[in-house]
Each structure stands twice: as structure tokens, then as C-alpha cells.
């Protein structure tokens, strides 16, 4: 392996942390999708069945 500078490694480590944190966005995204789906099913059950 090559000799990367401490700065480069520090930046890479910070980017890794950032990308790892960005994965937590999947949770609210799924919640938004789920809420919309539940709302549609609720409309169906209340007004159409």
C-alpha cells in the first residue's frame, strides 16, 4: 500500500462517517412512504369498501 498523508486519511475517515450517517436517512424516507401508503389504504377502507 502507498503512503497516504495523515490529512488524506483524516478526510477519508470523515467521509466514511458522513456516508454511514447518511444511511440513517433511509428510515425517515421509509416512514414517509409508509405513511402515504397507510393514508391511501385508510381512504379505501373508509370510503370505498
Amino acid at each position, binding site marked *: 500500500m502507498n503512503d*497516504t498523508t495523515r490529512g488524506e486519511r483524516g478526510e*477519508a*475517515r470523515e467521509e466514511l462517517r458522513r456516508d454511514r450517517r447518511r444511511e440513517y436517512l433511509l*428510515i425517515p424516507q421509509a416512514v414517509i*412512504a409508509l405513511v402515504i*401508503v397507510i393514508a391511501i389504504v385508510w381512504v379505501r377502507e373508509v370510503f370505498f*369498501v
Partner: protein
Amino acid sequence: MDVFWDVLYNVLVIVLLVFVATGAVPVITAAVHFVIVPMHAFFNHYGKAEPYFPRVAIMVPAWNEATVISATIERLLALEYPRESLRIYVIDDASTDDTPAIVSGWEAREPGRVFLLRREQGGQGKAHTLNHGIRVVLGDDWAEAVLIMDADVIFTPSSLAKMTRHLSDPKVGAVSAYIAEGSRDRNYMTRFIAIEYVLAQLASRRAQNVLGAHACLAGGAQLHSRANLEAIGGAIPTGTLAEDTVATFESQLHGRRMVFEPHAVVLAEEPGTIDALWKQRLRWARGNVQVSSIYRKVWFRPGHGVHHLGSIAFGASWFSIFLLPFAMILSSIGLVGLLLLQSDLAELVFRALWVTAAVTYIFSMLIGVQLDGRIGRSSWREAFLFPGLVSFVVMIAALFPGLIEETLPSMFGLQLTPVGHTLLTLFIYLWISLAMLGAWLARVIEKTRAGRFFSPFLTYLVGYGPLLCAITVDSYIKEWRKADAVWIKTEKTGRVLG
């Protein structure tokens, strides 16, 4: 005698119900996959990844790439990666244009960084071309990792470093990036492909990360550790039309983990017409038919070996895509048969099937458009018309009973006659199969003058999903007839975003 007919009738009803249930299998599999996607927040490989900059040999297979190769080399040299740890090998597959001359120029300007490897006899396919380069690279001990790519894709500056960090874990054999549709001149087809890539990569491959089994690491951005390449024989397996899928399977069968890195973005130019898409996907689909057969002893054998390719979830996912056209046709036959025997039961199972499909589709598309903001903003129409306008209306009809067939016509003073109602029901039940015929028709008329307008219109009407299914049917036929398996390269013009 009556008892015999009763039994026969009941058996027939059960068989038809099974047919309809076949259509539910891919829907449920997709639903499970999309429920798994958010779990990637907790079950991912980031915890075991470290900043890591191995010496990487980049393999660029090139055949008549004069329009794109210079820009590709320039961008690779500009990657945010230690300069001394990067070498670019352009493997020229006996090009007849200026590709070798252009690469020679770069070789002279960047000695020790850019290399031209020339094959005098080409046309055998990408795997053969790559192997020519891999043999050279593995011939000395410089390279610690090998990146396989396509000549026309653009690696965003940080993408390679985001991929290599996973190789710090010796259990990882290969890493793939997110190949995003990146054509400069977008049209309806590239927008459909863009949303397909979001669903198939950003969503599905995250789920595969969680499940621990990968179907295919994209051939346009496949980073292997040297140890992994050597373990699978020091070459990309040849003999199929899906060399990237076979390499992915072989790596896992040799006990190494595959990782999809969603934040490493690679832009690619994709087909802008149905015909070009058909040719590209026919090659992929035929490759998948071959892979299904080659690994027949792997499927649905959980706990066998050091990999998860035999898990039920992975097998269900693979065959749900592979056999989707069969499922759609069987489902139509089941619904029409039940309509003739027991129309009430037919309606009940139709609603159960289509409501499940609608809920899954809405959930998956809502996740999909959020995963990549750029694609979500530009392709949200294609996301919601992915199954086609007609299927979209059928889903609304299934979700909201009476809305389409009664409420809406009554607003215009119209009412369906009993015959009209039966014909409409028959059409709806048959639609998922008819849609594939519509997709085939869209390709047929595309080259006509009227086709320039009607082909996109028909594609929106029947849907992009059924278009892919029609191509899969074509692949079954071509494989069954043992049609020539020529490796036809997808035509590229260098219109990817700079």
C-alpha cells in the same frame, strides 16, 4: 357422475387459484425487498470499512471508443486518489478507429500511469478483452486491486476511494458502485432507465447487502481485490453473456463477501430507443438464463457452502425476475378461468392481487424517488408510470372499488351495460399479459415515421416493466432456439454528462 364433475370443478378452481397466486409471488418478493431497504441503515459494511488506498489497476476495455476514450482517461487521472497508486490499462480490442493512437498519446504523456494493451484479434466479447489485461496486471505484484469498468462511464471524483475503503476488510472480495443514468440529452427512455437503476441498485442492492448475497455487481464499476481475482482463477469467466454476474457468483462461491457502495456514483450513457434497449437487455437476459442453468445446484439450498446464494430470499428474488413473464401470463389465465367459473371469486382474488401490487408499487416508488434526488426530480413521472398508465388505472380500480367503473362514468351521465362490464373485466384480467404484446408493438413501430410519436406514447401506456418482461420472453425464445449468442456492444456516442 355428479360427484366426479364436482371434484373436477373444484380441482380446476384450485388450479386456477394457484395460477393467480403465481402472480403474487414476485409482488410479495418485491415488497419484502423494499421493507429490507431501510434496514441498511443498521446492517451495512461501514462499521468494518476503513480509509484504505491500495494500488489499483484500472481495466478499460475499448473497442472503437475514439469519441470517449480521451475524456475517460482524463477523468480517471483526476480521481481523488493517491497518484502513485493508480494505473490505467486500456485494453484495445482490435479497434478500427483512432482509439489506439489516442491512448498511445496518453501513454507518452503519462508514462507509468497510462498503458495501452492491444489485442490484434478482437470481437470475442468483454470478458476476453478484460482477461487479456488481467493476465498482464496479475503478471507482476504491483496491483493490490483491479477495477473493471466500461470505456464510456464517468467515475465521480470521490467514487474510487469510497469503493476501496471496503477492501480494508479482507473478507470482502469485490465492491460495486451505483451506476446512475447520466446522458446529457435525456428522453423518455433514459428517464425510465434512470428510475429503474435507482430501484435495481440504490434500493435492491442495499437489500442484497443486508441479505448477504449479490446477484450482480455492475460490470461498469466492479472493484476486485487481487486475492479475489486470483481465487476465481485469475480471470473473468468466459462462455456466457453475463460475465459480470458469473464473476459475482464465483466470488461468493469462493467465500468472499460482495459489497454495494451506494455513495460511490458512476455516470453512464444509456440507450435512448426501445430497439437499443432491447438489444442491450436481451444480452443481459440471455446471460441470466445461462446463469440460472449454470448454478442450478446452488438455488434454494440454504446453509450449503460459505455463501448466501442458496437462501430462500435470494432464490425467490432471482426467479421472481427471471420468471416474471410466466407469472404474469399464468395470473391472467387464472383470472379469466375463474371469471368463467366463479366470477365473484375471480373478483375477490383480482382485488387481493392488485391491491397487494398497488400497495407494493406505491411504497417502492415513494422510496425510489427519494433515494436519488436528482433522478427523483427529473423522472418522477416515469416512476409513477413504470408499470404503465393502464396498469396505474387498474390499480386505482382495485384500490377504490366502483370509482373507475361506476362513479367516474356517472359524472358524465354514462353507465356501463352488463356486457360492457363483462368485457371491461375481461380486458383488465388479461391486461398484464397484453401489456407485453403492447411493448413488443412499441418496438416494431419505433422505426416508422409515426412510431417516433406513438412508440413513446405506447411505452407510457403499457409501461416500462412490461417492456422488460417482453425482452425476457424474447431471451427465453432465443436461448431455446439456441440463437447465435453474439456479444453485441451497446452503441455509445459520448453523450454522458461531463
